[in-house]
């Protein structure tokens, strides 16, 4: 931003580091009968990275929406640089210098990166868009966020999801934001990309931007945050300097209780394996994979992104064909050629990306749970048994502690963790012989994570053979009866319960830059 030809007024030096930039007091918002937030208080300072944490449904999203103008508060006060302000539209927020990067990239696929960055705030000359000026500015921004300058004129549809996320940040920065809200920016990024992100965040903070950082990866907070505000059940519990907190303390504040650390003892019944992968290979993806899962056992394939672990899961579920090797189910070789075929064999899948796969977001919870199990819930295979559908849904809502007023609520109105539980519920309607979970708790908060683990464990106890593919190491260690490391497309070392993170990581190799977990 120091270049002379910058198109923006030079950012003022942080006038008074730590000065109050944005403050909310007593803010409340209700949606119908649901009180999304009540009496929320938060003060964000210039040049500070302020983390906002809480379980899904705790009210973080609503608070962010209020600050970014996507929703308006029912009561309460917002002050910006000491002045009371009224944010009634996204345009108001942008005009104040409050920029938001949403979790899902909010981009236009057919427009170029430069156009995306400037949509809604085009630089114009005599009524026409000044492409040259926009491009020059975008090139600076691309450098700042670590993308090649030539991307300026590339349509966004040609970039990867991670690159799109970075473009979203560039988009937020173009207005010389004074407050930058990052809503789970790291959820879809790899470790290397997260490092780049942190670099950008630090640089921005050092120029005096106040940053509100939302994340479910709590260990990140200790790398990047200066202060932490914790929300629970729609209320802000308070704000602490990061030095006064630990991951454990944050989790306790979020869930409102003391965390149970030791996973319940779980013995696997001695039985012949239910699912066996024998020398399974898929050209270009993985090779010579050997895995055996007994009924009631939870086996985890731990591998970093690109290790081939995800592709192995897809093969079991019939989304990908193996080129050699065998899959045995109860001793019989199977070759599911489609998810439908896999399901008929009794194999259920919890897909990795719940936003893209597996959910009908505008349909009700009941619909989503029963989709795929229509024969079971219909009479004589024809008309739907609506009463039974609702009953099953209610049953699952209770069993999974999904937070929702009723089973007719559309999934689109639910938080991420709750949506994930609905996907899980759907697969559990017909107690599957084998359950395959891919990244089951990605982007899910700690509380929901615990619940999902609990559900998976209780399913295993009922005799399901569970195969989990994850790149979340603590999760892999916590939940598995056995853990197999996938590296460079093949299964390598195996660990029992209680393995140390260091050992597993060493086996997975390539995880050299693992941040010191607090």
């Amino acid at each position: 931003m120091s270049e002379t030809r910058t198109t923006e007024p030079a950012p003022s030096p942080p006038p008074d580091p730590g000065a109050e930039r944005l403050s909310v007091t007593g803010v409340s918002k209700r949606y119908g009968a649901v009180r999304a937030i009540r009496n929320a208080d938060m003060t964000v300072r210039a040049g500070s990275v302020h983390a906002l944490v809480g379980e899904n449904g705790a009210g973080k999203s609503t608070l962010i929406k209020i600050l970014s103008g996507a929703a308006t508060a029912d009561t309460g006060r917002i002050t910006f640089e000491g002045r009371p302000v009224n944010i009634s539209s996204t345009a108001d927020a942008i005009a104040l210098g409050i920029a938001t990067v949403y979790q899902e990239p909010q981009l236009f696929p057919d427009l170029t990166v430069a156009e995306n960055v400037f949509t809604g705030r085009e630089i114009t000359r005599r009524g026409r868009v000044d492409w040259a000026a926009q491009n020059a500015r975008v090139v600076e921004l691309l450098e700042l966020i670590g993308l090649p300058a030539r991307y300026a004129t590339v349509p966004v549809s040609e970039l990867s999801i991670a690159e799109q996320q970075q473009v979203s940040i560039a988009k937020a920065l173009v207005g010389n934001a004074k407050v930058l809200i990052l809503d789970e920016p790291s959820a879809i990024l790899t470790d290397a990309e997260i490092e780049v992100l942190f670099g950008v965040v630090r640089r921005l903070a050092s120029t005096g931007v106040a940053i509100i950082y939302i994340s479910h990866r709590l260990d990140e907070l200790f790398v990047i945050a200066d202060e932490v505000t914790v929300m629970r059940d729609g209320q802000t519990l308070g704000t602490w300097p990061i030095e006064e907190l630990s991951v454990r303390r944050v989790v306790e504040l979020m869930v409102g209780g003391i965390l149970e650390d030791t996973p319940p003892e779980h013995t696997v019944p001695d039985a012949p394996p239910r699912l066996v992968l024998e020398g399974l290979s898929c050209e270009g993806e993985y090779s010579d994979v050997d895995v055996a899962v007994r009924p009631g056992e939870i086996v985890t394939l731990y591998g970093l992104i690109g290790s081939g672990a995800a592709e192995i899961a897809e093969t079991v579920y019939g989304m990908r064909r193996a080129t050699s090797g065998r899959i045995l189910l109860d001793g019989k070789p199977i070759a599911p050629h489609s998810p439908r075929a896999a399901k008929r064999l009794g194999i259920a899948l919890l897909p990795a990306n719940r936003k893209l796969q597996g959910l009908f977001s505008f349909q009700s919870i009941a619909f989503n749970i029963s989709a795929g199990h229509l024969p079971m819930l219909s009479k004589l295979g024809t008309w739907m048994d609506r009463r039974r559908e609702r009953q099953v849904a209610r049953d699952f809502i209770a069993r999974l502690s999904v937070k929702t007023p009723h089973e007719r609520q559309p999934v689109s109105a639910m938080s991420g963790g709750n949506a994930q539980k609905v996907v899980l519920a759907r697969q559990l309607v017909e107690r599957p012989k084998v359950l395959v979970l891919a990244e089951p708790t990605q982007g899910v908060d700690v509380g929901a994570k615990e619940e999902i683990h609990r559900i998976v464990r209780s399913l295993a106890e009922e005799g399901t053979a569970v195969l989990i593919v994850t790149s979340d190491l603590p999760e892999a260690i916590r939940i598995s009866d056995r853990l197999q490391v996938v590296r460079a497309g093949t299964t390598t070392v195996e660990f029992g319960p209680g393995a140390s993170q260091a050992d597993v990581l060493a086996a997975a190799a390539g995880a050299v830059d693992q941040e010191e977990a607090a």
Partner: protein
Amino acid sequence: MSSSTLTPPGGAPAGQQAHTAKERGRVLPFPITGQEIVLIVVIVALWVALALATPAFLTEGSIVPLFVAMAPVALIGIGMTVIIITGGIDVSVAGIVMVCAVVVAKAMVDSGASLPVAVALSVVIGGLLGLVNGVLIAYGRVHAIIITFGTANLFKFLGLQLFGGTTVDNIPGTLAFFGRGEAGRTLGVPHSFLVMLLIAAAAWYYLRHTPGGRHLYAIGGDADAARLAGVKVQRRVMSAYVLTGLLTGLAACFVIARGTSTLAPNVGAGMELAAIAAVVIGGTSIMGGRGSVLGTVLGALLVQTVTSGVTQLGWRSQLSSLFIGIFILIAVGADLLRQRARRTT
């Protein structure tokens, strides 16, 4: 830094003037798409083939009516392009043509309305009907196809009421300026075609180079994201339908001008489909977010070439439906392939 730090629209700081033309370079995708080039090639090939097959094709008596016939379709198509770019559609334009045409025809017959009055009247009525569509679609949040399907029937009812079960006869030649006769041409080029080209050029510039135009693409790409970026989505969407109404009003004058002195209640029938066909053949994605006016004008030209060609060759006229149908399917197929290719990369 106490005031807004947003880049002021319209006023780029002085530092930008330093950019040389060279630096400016190509900052948008190439101004002409592959599909448009293919269209030009196909049209040229058809014209060459037709010229060889029937010597009468490349004569004034054949080309002028072709241009006059395509002008109203292309004009409506320009508005339709803008609408489809936002992810909408308007199937009520035939109804708008009908209402505008009958009102204007009656005004000329009964009150001897002059050319400017007739055109102004038609454009204003078209704009008002477009406003009805726009308000319902932008603020009613129901999909455009349902709304305009409803209003299409209302407009048709309105038009039939105005016709009163009979034709409008003895229409004076007030609109001959837009007709295919000598009065409708300058240097041999039909005025209606020229006006259409001018409007197409303006629309092309607007869509490609102004913030408002780019916002239309943004809305078609992701309306929620556009709203969050501060785009006035509802107002933009509404204005697309108003624009189409205005252009359809003008097109109604062209339709009267190219016809006889009698206006029958079937006026405008099928024009919504002809306009949508031109837009789709022109490469505008029916999913929204991508498209161009140039493609639409070429699409309209191709459709009219096929229709005229079939007539001139003395083939059965239903063959033109066959050819146009094939062109539409090819265009939609190309769009689908593009979307799929994008998803897999």
